């Protein structure tokens, strides 16, 4: 027996069996105990509850939602809310981060100082504190009655009111996809016509594509608008409340602003790092070819910096997506809050935790897949450059 334990192969097998076995036993025991405990409370395990109606409502949804809708519909709403908030925050944060990052890399020392101060302050204050702050700020704004209007926008304690197009749901969806096409088309056209067309013509084709898609969107909006209504619906005070327009609830705004500011400070550092990684030699070469400073920036510095940034940026975006879970702090019904509410109301703890893990795994994996594709597409070809 003792000599058997001294055998390397026996010992290795034993170690693996014990490790994996005890972990599996731990998880299994947890599940068994949980099922027994839940059964004592009269909760039967299984996914049948997904088809029952919830009996509670969500405060933010892009899809129609009532308390009669089943749980699975609410999970879908939660995922869409998370993605919507995540994408909004991600775009805003990228915008903020790019501006601040460029300020930090600019030759101007005052702009550098400004960018650095921004990063130092907002990076070092926890995100949730910033969420709380913006939420408190917005909910302490004047009530709808006392709010003043500017450019059709109304800032009130009940949220931000913006003019909304008076169009049906189908037309809205079609128009949105047309706008997305307007962004995607030039990229796609640029790639397919790269080899066959000279540079000038390529730009023309790209512009034409984008313009066509935008025109499409406009036509859809005009044709698809609701009968007997102006194209744009402005919010207006009616009695004690505001009617018309689109209300961006304070929960959403607070989260989006906080994520944009906090995430922006991180992205600024990524942008700065990306630009710092571009070799001096490359820029000197570009300048010695007689390129103007603007051309040096757009043709050499930016493309190289982007390639260096993208993998780190991808991580940051995944992080931002996960940060949307702070919605629960101010009552924004993101995916996680729906999960928490479901556990409270239905008691289907194990199943819902499983759905939570699966949901985030799916979000993370799809984001990673998208970025891997972009990375691969723009990666410098060949491996002879390094060293």
């Amino acid at each position, binding site marked *: 027996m003792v000599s058997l334990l001294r055998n390397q192969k026996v010992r290795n097998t034993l170690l693996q069996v014990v490790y994996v076995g005890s972990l599996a036993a731990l998880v299994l025991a947890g599940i068994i105990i949980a099922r027994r405990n839940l059964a004592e409370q009269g909760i039967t395990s299984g996914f049948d509850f997904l088809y029952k109606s919830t009996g509670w409502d969500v405060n933010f949804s892009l899809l129609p939602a009532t308390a009669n809708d089943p749980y699975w519909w609410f999970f879908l709403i939660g995922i869409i809310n998370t993605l919507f908030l995540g994408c909004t925050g991600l775009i805003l944060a990228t915008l903020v981060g790019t501006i601040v990052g460029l300020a930090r890399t600019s030759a101007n020392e005052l702009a550098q100082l400004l960018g650095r101060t921004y990063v130092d302050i907002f990076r070092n204050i926890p995100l949730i504190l910033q969420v709380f702050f913006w939420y408190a700020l917005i909910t302490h704004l004047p009530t709808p009655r006392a709010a003043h209007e500017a450019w059709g926008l109304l800032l009130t304690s009940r949220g931000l009111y913006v003019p909304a197009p008076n169009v049906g749901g189908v037309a809205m969806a079609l128009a949105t996809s047309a706008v997305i096409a307007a962004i995607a088309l030039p990229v796609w056209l640029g790639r397919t016509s790269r080899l066959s067309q000279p540079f000038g013509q390529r730009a023309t084709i790209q512009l034409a594509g984008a313009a066509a898609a935008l025109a499409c969107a406009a036509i859809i909006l005009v044709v698809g608008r609701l009968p007997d209504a102006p194209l744009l619906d402005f919010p207006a005070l009616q009695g004690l409340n505001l009617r018309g327009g689109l209300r961006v609830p304070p929960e959403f705004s607070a989260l989006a602003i906080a994520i944009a500011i906090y995430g922006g400070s991180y992205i600024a550092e990524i942008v700065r790092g990306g630009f710092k990684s571009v070799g001096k030699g490359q820029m000197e070469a570009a300048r010695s070819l007689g390129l103007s400073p603007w051309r040096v920036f757009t043709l050499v510095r930016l493309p190289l910096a982007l390639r260096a940034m993208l993998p780190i940026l991808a991580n940051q975006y995944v992080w931002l997506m996960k940060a949307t879970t702070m919605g629960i702090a101010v009552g924004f019904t993101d995916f996680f809050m729906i999960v928490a509410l479901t556990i409270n109301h239905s008691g289907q703890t194990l199943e819902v935790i499983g759905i939570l893990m699966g949901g985030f*795994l799916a979000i993370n994996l799809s984001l990673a897949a998208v970025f891997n594709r972009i990375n691969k597409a723009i990666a410098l070809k060949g491996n002879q450059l390094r060293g």
Partner: protein
Amino acid sequence: MEMVIVAPPAPGRLEDLKRRFFATPLQALLSLISLAIMVSTVWKLLNWAVFSAVFTTSGGPEACQAAAGACWSVIAARWRIILFGLYPFEEQWRSALACLTVVVMTVLSCIPAFWTGRRIALVWGAGAASYYVLMKGGVLGLSYVGEEAWGGLALTLFIFVTTCLIGFPLAVCLALLRRSELPWISRTTGLIIDGVRSLPLISILFTFAIVLPFALPQWLAGDKLYRVILGSALFFSAYQAEIVRGGMQGVPAGQEEAAMALGMSYWQRIGRILLPQAMRNALPATINQFVISFKETSLVVIVGFFEILASGNAAYGTGEWRFAYVEVYAFIAFIYFVFVFSLSRYGAFLERRMAVGER
């Protein structure tokens, strides 16, 4: 640092200024815009926070609300609840002393003389133990104060320190398991680490606080505070494990081979050869992780703990100070800022020093 470009002694100050900020029209525009933003922000901030602000409680909330600037009276009136939560009023010096212990401990662990496994463990072990005794009492003539009464900054620091104290050794274990040559051990550990990393911290805290009691026998469930700390430590360790593993990958394979050839056992190789070098490689990233983890401690407010954010909400949320939320959040933000900024500056300093050392 890279920011300050020391100009050579130029003939005139004016020309120097011109060269640095107004070299081209674009530069001039950028300088002016930056200057305008800076001046207006600093002026507004100073005006609000200092010139027009009220600092004393003498006028009461009403006078304070009427003032144009900040109402720091709310801090003067409520700082104790923000820092110490619901800890018994007469005993709050213990809470303060406990916070001080944590600060001293952090400062000590920034001194290179303490960077051996045994010394750092001693500092943190002793620090956490004295914190616990101070806060909980029941011995040495200190009256007993249960965990449910802990709050404010003191609770935040307690959660942070215990998270690191549990999370760090766990991270080293996970890193070692993941780089194991045995495929099943390394794969299973990889699954655990990647799984935890793909989840948001809030969902893990929630699971440990609210769901875990279902899955544990009664006698094992323990206090909610310690379950949440465990969850937080698990999350910390999953990230820190990858940092430690990165540090280990930076140690050449020849180091372990040499140790093997000298007949050293697995634990001797890990303890004497691999870890000391890996930890040194991983130091800047580790400090960064500590910074992140300190900021994330604030998330426990969501599972219902009375840490500094919740106590801040309570400080302005009730009664006559409802309007003074900006001041309260500014105060809390300042506390976080002091901790996080100094720690991250220290991390950047270390990184630079190590980069120089490698040359």
